[in-house]
């Protein structure tokens, strides 16, 4: 049966050929991640700095009332953990897009895009590879956080996996969409200022939305419309074995939109890359 599926001809290519392509892209991303140890360390240090330093300092300042999915009072460290998990994925998504800009400058992108596989499939594989890497980072972070008394229910570690896959895809697809519009590596600093920081701070990652609403109703609405807020909430609920349907719908919808946008943008005949030759090609 399996052999039958493996030999089944998809339009143009066999299932096995698709798998080979997926394997190649995921493997390359994995190797790149493993070989850049400093990247792994920095990906972990960033949320840990927030957890150990920022959260410890703010523990007494910000009281958290009981809000779903929590059923009792929690320390601030516990509150920001899902936000930091999503932050890992956000940075990873942007890092992945940074690597795409780099690949384009170096000409590697051409190697990828001249593959006869459909473009959506190539980008999907790239997205999956980035998501897998981000999930490894998130679980490493959760392991360290466990020693910091952040102990979600055991089932939460399993339940959060699908949420991480989905949010990883959303943030990765967003990064991909952004990378399609960046001509040169130097421009990437702008992404930090215009995408990562606003998305992270105008969300429920650091403070609950009811508290944001108390401070600024305007900012509250901005947070509500921020897809990152919903990625955080989806992860937060899943980590406690619960489901937030609204966040699931928003995150799934955003994944579809960003993904379609990225596929179109990377299509030379229609997309953004039509506007001029890529850095590596000049």
């Amino acid at each position, binding site marked *: 049966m399996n052999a039958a599926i493996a030999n089944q001809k998809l339009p143009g290519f066999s299932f096995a050929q698709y798998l080979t392509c997926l394997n190649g892209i995921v493997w390359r991303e994995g190797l790149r991640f493993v070989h850049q140890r400093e990247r792994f360390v920095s990906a972990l240090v960033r949320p840990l700095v927030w957890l150990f330093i920022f959260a*410890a300092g703010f*523990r*007494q300042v910000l009281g958290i009332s*009981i809000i779903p999915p929590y*059923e*009792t*009072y*929690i*320390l601030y460290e516990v509150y920001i953990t899902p936000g930091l998990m999503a932050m890992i994925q956000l940075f990873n998504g942007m890092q992945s897009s940074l690597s795409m800009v780099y690949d384009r400058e170096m000409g590697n992108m051409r190697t990828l895009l001249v593959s006869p596989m459909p473009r959506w499939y190539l980008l999907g594989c790239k997205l999956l590879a980035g998501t897998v890497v981000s999930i490894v980072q998130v679980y490493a972070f959760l392991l360290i956080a466990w020693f910091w008394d952040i*102990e979600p*229910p*055991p*089932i939460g570690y*399993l339940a959060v996996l699908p949420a991480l896959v989905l949010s990883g895809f959303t943030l990765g697809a967003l990064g991909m969409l952004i990378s399609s519009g960046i001509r040169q590596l130097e421009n990437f600093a702008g992404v930090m200022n215009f995408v990562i920081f606003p998305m992270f701070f105008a969300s429920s990652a650091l403070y609950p939305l009811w508290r944001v609403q108390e401070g600024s109703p305007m900012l509250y609405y901005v947070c509500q419309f921020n897809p990152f807020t919903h990625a955080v909430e989806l992860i937060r609920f899943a980590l406690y*074995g619960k489901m937030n349907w609204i966040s699931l719908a928003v995150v799934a919808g955003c994944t579809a939109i960003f993904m379609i946008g990225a596929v179109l943008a990377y299509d030379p005949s229609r997309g953004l890359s039509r506007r001029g030759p890529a850095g590596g090609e000049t």
Partner: protein
Amino acid sequence: MLRHCLVSGIAVWLAGTLPAGAFIAYVSNEKSNTVSVIDTDKWAVIKTIKVGQRPRGIELTRDGKFVLVAVGDDNTIQMIDTATREVTNTLPSGPDPELFVQDKAGKILYVANENDNTVTVIDIEKRTRIGDVQVGVEPEGMALSPDGRFLINTSETTNMAHFIDTETRQIVANVLVDARPRYAEFKRDGSELWVSSEIGGTVAVIDPAKRTVTKKVTFNIPGMRKEAIQPVGISIVADGKTAFIALGPANRVAVVDAASHQVTKYLLVGQRAWHMAFTPDEKFLLVTNGVSNDVSVIDVAALKVIKTIQVGELPWGITIAKQ
């Protein structure tokens, strides 16, 4: 291996989420003049009983038929019938009763009257006052030695634990403790008496035979002002190995190794953790949080707070009955 881990994980999770069995908790709400009734199957308030003014001390009678609640501003103790969950009778205390304790047979009740510097002795069956003992200023904490020979009363202003002979009803010893002793509790084997001092911020461990303080449990929560740590309620597990101490405005319950008298963990609960009660199977410990108007549930085996339930205003005391 992976399967084994997964199955164990799910089992642990299920054990953590299963209800406590059919127990009913009664919580006195000092400000709203009510008693909230909590079903531990649902972890929800199923009834609110209107009682007298300023209900504080609350305890189930030994036969389980009544819940006694000291209504300080009405200068009496009301009896709530556990079958109908209505106030049916009263017991004659002195002025401003606060905490009380029953003898082992459930016939005699000893009541600390805060404004009168006395302990009143009441015959529960006859509902009559059968004696008074003059004690220190502002009596509050009450405990009876497991053999029933000595009654302990702490007086908030005198800063003493008074040892009262239950036969002669005379004070036979006074033990000086730190400022504002609030609560007293014996280990079940009678080997130690623990007295919490709210202002002093310590719990004195007293040898009941020598009547001297042998050890003091101290608390230190990183980042928390020392003054905010005010121990009040004490609950010691039946096997005498672990004790829980509610730390008032520190919003924590300290878990104490009852052998070494060292704090092993602090559990975050609501604001102003006050008194506590175990479910009869000792699987859960319920804590009243006076300022946040709720009750937190601690899983005793896991040492985790699993739930917090909204009750009336200023929850103070708590007692738990079988269904």
